[in-house]
């Protein structure tokens, strides 16, 4: 018995001393404040010619990077005036004390030089100021005119390295540019970089165009326009300008969208007041009918794995969102809230479906999980619709129309973006009024 007690006492001290060794504290919360980042100006290598120097891109590239990162809402760019070190010194070996002094947590530096074959070489380095280490260092080679794109690529790399999520800056947005008076509105297809620069108009505006959608994998666009006074779905290659009618349907086709692998187009085809959902393989032109219901089924959108399709239908009496398998079976209603639901768009991440909701004369852009749970309304306004996901599934672009006054003034449509938090809402500046935006996939992913 005595022995037993001794043993207990011994064990007891053993365990005690062990538990003293390492106190554990669980850190399950942190802040989601924008990360303070210092983006130093880049610098020219000595071999650069004066023509390039005039373009001032050593300041412009960091500026684009800074704008991209700031607009994402996840980064806070520190004022360049507070920077102590010169760009060339910082790029080679930053004095981290100088940067942590101004409360920077990460630092971006860069160098621009010219290769022998006249290509531009843009080097950048990302530094962890707090841990005093280099996080990444990359160089991009490109034609000198392409420097803007390099800035977007750098932004993506930084975004991905710090958040763990793919960026979305090296992307483009296609939209409908609207000009002219309300009664005789001219609508043209336009494409621009995601930051609003480099606008190109793709159609002349003779025919009305609606609902352009980017292929997630390449430079194809599908949209609706009129052919012999009948709305039809078209396919357009924005590099070559080649345009093509999709399918030979004896009636109206609309609401087109690409499948996530970019190989099919899914759309609505209306006949005798009833519309159903069809797909067409772009290469083989084989058409398949997916729904067969006397109600209006429209706005189909594939899940990223291609196994399911979300669409809206009024088969319950009101317009609601449904999902089905990609062969048209297993139709399930997923939206059950008050109001009308439309334009479901499956997130590229697969977890969420974005939608437009009309409730008590207000329009909402919201998201729900793909089973219909967890509905979250991100923004409310007089009129807004057509959300489209950025390729990383974190930001949505949509368009919003403001109410026009009694004299018919105002009431223009503009593009807006909002992230999943619902707090970071931003206007995307366009030359003209703009509607029906669609976000491309990452250009570099091709």
């Amino acid at each position, binding site marked *: 018995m005595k022995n037993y*007690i001794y043993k*207990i006492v011994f*064990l*007891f*001290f053993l*365990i*005690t001393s062990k*538990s*003293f*060794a*390492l*106190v*554990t*504290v*669980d*850190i*399950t*919360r*942190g*802040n*989601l*404040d924008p*990360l303070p980042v210092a983006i130093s100006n880049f610098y020219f290598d000595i071999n650069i010619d004066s023509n390039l120097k005039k373009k001032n891109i050593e300041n412009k590239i960091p500026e684009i990077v800074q704008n991209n990162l700031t607009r994402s809402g*996840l980064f806070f760019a520190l004022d360049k005036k507070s920077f102590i070190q010169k760009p060339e010194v910082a790029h080679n070996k930053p004095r981290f004390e100088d940067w942590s002094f101004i409360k920077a*947590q990460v630092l971006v530096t860069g160098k621009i030089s010219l290769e022998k074959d006249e290509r531009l070489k843009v080097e950048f380095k990302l530094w*962890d100021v*707090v*841990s005093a280490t280099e*996080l990444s260092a990359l160089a991009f080679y490109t034609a000198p005119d392409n420097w803007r794109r390099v800035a977007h690529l750098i932004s993506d790399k930084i975004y*991905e*390295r*710090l*958040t*763990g*999520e*793919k960026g979305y800056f090296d992307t483009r947005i296609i939209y409908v540019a609207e000009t002219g008076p309300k009664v005789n509105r001219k609508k043209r297809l336009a494409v621009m970089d995601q930051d609003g620069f480099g606008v190109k108009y793709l159609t002349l505006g003779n025919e009305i165009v609606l609902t352009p959608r980017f292929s997630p994998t390449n430079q194809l666009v599908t949209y609706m326009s009129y052919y012999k006074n009948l709305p039809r779905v078209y396919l357009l290659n924005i590099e070559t300008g080649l345009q093509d009618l999709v399918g030979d349907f004896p009636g109206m086709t609309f609401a087109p969208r690409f499948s996530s692998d970019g190989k099919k187009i899914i759309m609505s085809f209306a006949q005798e007041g009833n519309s159903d959902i069809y797909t067409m393989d772009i290469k083989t032109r084989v058409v398949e009918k997916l729904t067969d219901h006397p109600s209006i089924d429209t706005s189909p959108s594939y899940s990223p794995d291609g196994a399911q399709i979300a669409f809206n239908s009024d088969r319950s009496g009101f317009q609601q969102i449904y999902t089905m398998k990609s062969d048209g079976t297993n139709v399930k209603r997923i939206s059950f809230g008050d109001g009308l639901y439309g334009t479901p768009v499956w997130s590229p991440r697969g977890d969420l479906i974005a939608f437009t909701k009309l409730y008590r004369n207000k329009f909402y852009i919201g998201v729900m999980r793909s089973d219909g749970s967890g509905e979250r309304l991100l923004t409310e306004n007089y009129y807004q619709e057509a959300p489209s996901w950025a390729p*990383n599934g*974190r930001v949505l672009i949509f368009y919003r129309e403001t109410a026009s006054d009694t004299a018919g003034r105002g009431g223009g449509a503009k593009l807006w973006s909002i992230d999943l938090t619902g707090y970071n809402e931003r206007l995307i500046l366009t030359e003209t009024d703009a509607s029906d935006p669609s976000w491309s996939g990452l250009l570099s992913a091709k």
Partner: protein
Amino acid sequence: MQKSLKISFIGHFVILFISSITLPFLMGKVQAPLVISVDLVQIGDRTNIPYAPKVLDGEKTDKKTKDRVVTNQAPPKIVPKEKPDAVPLPENIKQIKELLEKRQNPVKVENLDKQTSEFEKKEIFDPNKISALIDKSKKDNAEIEKKTSLEATQSQQKNVVVSKLTITQEDAIKAQIFKCWNIPIGLPYNENLTVKVRIKLNPDGSLISSEILDQSRMNAGGQTYYKILAESALRAVKLCNPLKVPPTEYEKWKEMQLNFDAKEMLRG
């Protein structure tokens, strides 16, 4: 009839006589309340640090050991920090036992407890004050929060006996790191990503070293998320340097393991 009355009378008298001798309260010698009140003052003086914590310290460091010990000797109860008066310290226990044996009067014990609690009211007050202050500090007053929670841990060490950090101490450290940790928002919330960081601290709370415990995973391919999380955790630890630490019991917190897990936050 007369006879039985007499027997009853004598019998009652005998009982009364015996009880008047044996029952203590009739003797007038023992003045229980007085003795106890005198004792109380002494106990109060003794219950101050540092003796008490040491004794209990060992006894309840680990749950397993605690259980075993409990089977063999008087229960060293866990002291919930909000009610430091609930459990008498070991010296008290002994004295209480003595008293109990002498007096067999539980009321007095209760009285004693009550007295103790009154004596310690100063300490009880602190946690309340702290929680109030922490509430206030939520409105962007970081400094006050840190300060008060530390004050709290300091004062509570007198009565709350722990082997790990107290909840307040732990909270104080958590609160600091929460502010320093900028969560990488792109991490998947459905994967199990926990980064364990071991930190070593100086007595003033400044950082000697910090290291990722699962270093191999850090350098393994395909662990991008883990790496990004780990880097952010290391940044958090360094940004929080020096940590505001409890002023005493350096042995306890000179080395800590911080488990960083952003799942809850990311799931929203």
